[in-house]
């Protein structure tokens, strides 16, 4: 029993540590001429305020699916909105034809695969999932 409690405690510590430390990487296709973006650049792309990368290449932002830890963290720290505020923000644009929210691209692996295959897309994944198929342009600590 004590062993079980210890394991549970360990799992808890690991899980919370993971959430607290998980760094999120904003990624683009390796061939994109942009080497880094500011938080403001990224936020403007994901809030529909900008439609192109600095330099003029058309940008297609890709979200992770609703409910993912990476999405919640990204929205809170970069877009400065919790899940409900983010939804309310986009519903003001969707129902007026003034904007279309970023498409949901799935989890870390799915988003990475999309970005690796499309030179216009920008997404975000857990830093641990980054490999040579994508380029990191901003990090959310």
């Amino acid at each position, binding site marked *: 029993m004590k062993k079980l409690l210890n394991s549970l405690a360990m799992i808890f510590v690991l899980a919370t540590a993971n959430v607290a430390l998980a760094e999120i990487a904003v990624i683009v296709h390796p061939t994109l001429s942009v080497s880094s973006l500011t938080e403001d650049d990224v936020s403007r792309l994901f809030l529909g*305020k900008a439609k*192109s990368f600095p330099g003029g290449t058309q940008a297609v932002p890709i979200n992770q699916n609703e409910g993912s830890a990476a999405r919640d963290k990204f929205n809170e720290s970069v877009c400065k909105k919790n899940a409900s505020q983010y939804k309310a923000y986009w519903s003001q644009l969707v*129902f007026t034809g003034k904007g279309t929210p970023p498409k949901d691209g799935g989890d870390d692996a799915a988003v990475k695969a999309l970005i690796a295959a499309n030179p216009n897309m920008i997404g975000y994944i857990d830093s641990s999932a980054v490999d040579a198929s994508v380029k990191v342009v901003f990090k959310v600590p």
Partner: protein
Amino acid sequence: MKKISSNRKKNHLAWTIALVMAAPFACASDVNFSGFLSVGGGMLDDEDAVAYGGYDEEDLTFDRNLLGLQVSGQINEKVTATAQLIARSNNDYEVDAEWAYLSWQANDFVKVRAGRLRTPFYMYSDFLDVGYSYAWITPPQEVYYLPFNNVDGVDVYLTGTLGIFDTSLQAYFGSFTDDLVLSGAPADAETRNQIGLSGTLGKDWWTLRAAYHQADLTIDVTGIPISQTATLGSFVNTLRTFGFNSNADRVLVEEDDVTFAEVGINIDTGRFVAAAEHVEFDPGDAILSKNIREYVMVGVRAGDWLIHLTAAKAKDEATHPETGIPVGQPLPVVGSTNFLIGTLQAIANSQAIERDVLTLGTRWDVTTGTAIKFQIDDIDSPDSVLVDGTVVSGQQKVFSVAVQTVF
């Protein structure tokens, strides 16, 4: 003035566009469906006092329901077709196409739309029906009182940056035809040569907005009763009989040049929210009053809750349709010109509303996409006297609740 039913004729254009749009949907690869729902109701504190917000009972009624469905299809890279169909409980759930338009995204900064659009009168006009997107159950009706919310026409929507600021500019031209209920009588209404401009300037947590519109407004007011035997139409004939033609013209609302102006500010820091709007409607030569309306809202977020307080005010100025009629001249049948002057002043005064409303409300985000809202409105307006002499108190409280979602 309250809209009660929809004129099927007025929907022909909208439906035609909706049907034209349905064709490409069949083969379009990128069709988006989204929707919103609001279910709500309310009750009065005192049903012997003035009615408010469409509520006239002390018993809770759930009759503020609406369902909206938006279909939008990408026809090609630059052209999108969008239709928004809304069914409202206070319109017997008859489906209305409140938006139906084709939009052409010329480049990153310029969008041109044609069809039935929402008129950008107010800060919240665009998403008026999407309660989920704002704090209140509905925006303060002292300011959000105009009976026309849509326009059939074209607009240009520009977005861009000005230094460090985000800006937008929307210009439109169009017209609208609708049927209203004025003082209990149906009245056909239309705008022609309606033109308007709205602009925003913002940065991160604040946005400033200003808008200006003008139109030739015609409302058939002749059927409005002014006493148990007379209508506004018969009174206009009386005025003409005595040669007061210019006064008669001022009673009628016929191609009158009217204007509507708005300024507003919206603030959302995440923790604190605030909004304020001031609007003025100038009726030109029409007998409608000059409407001067405003509200200020402040709120604070705590977790999934938002608590907000709003002060709204209507302080209309009555027009003077009696100007030019000499005082105290004897007249056959009605006695003297004083009768005409008194009647004209009474009609003009009845169009002017004075009211203060204090609203305390909460929004609780139950899950992402669903909010439950409670609201108490405290209404302070002058007492009124009915035809039979009964005094109706202008003090009232309204309690309302709504569940609002987007999907």
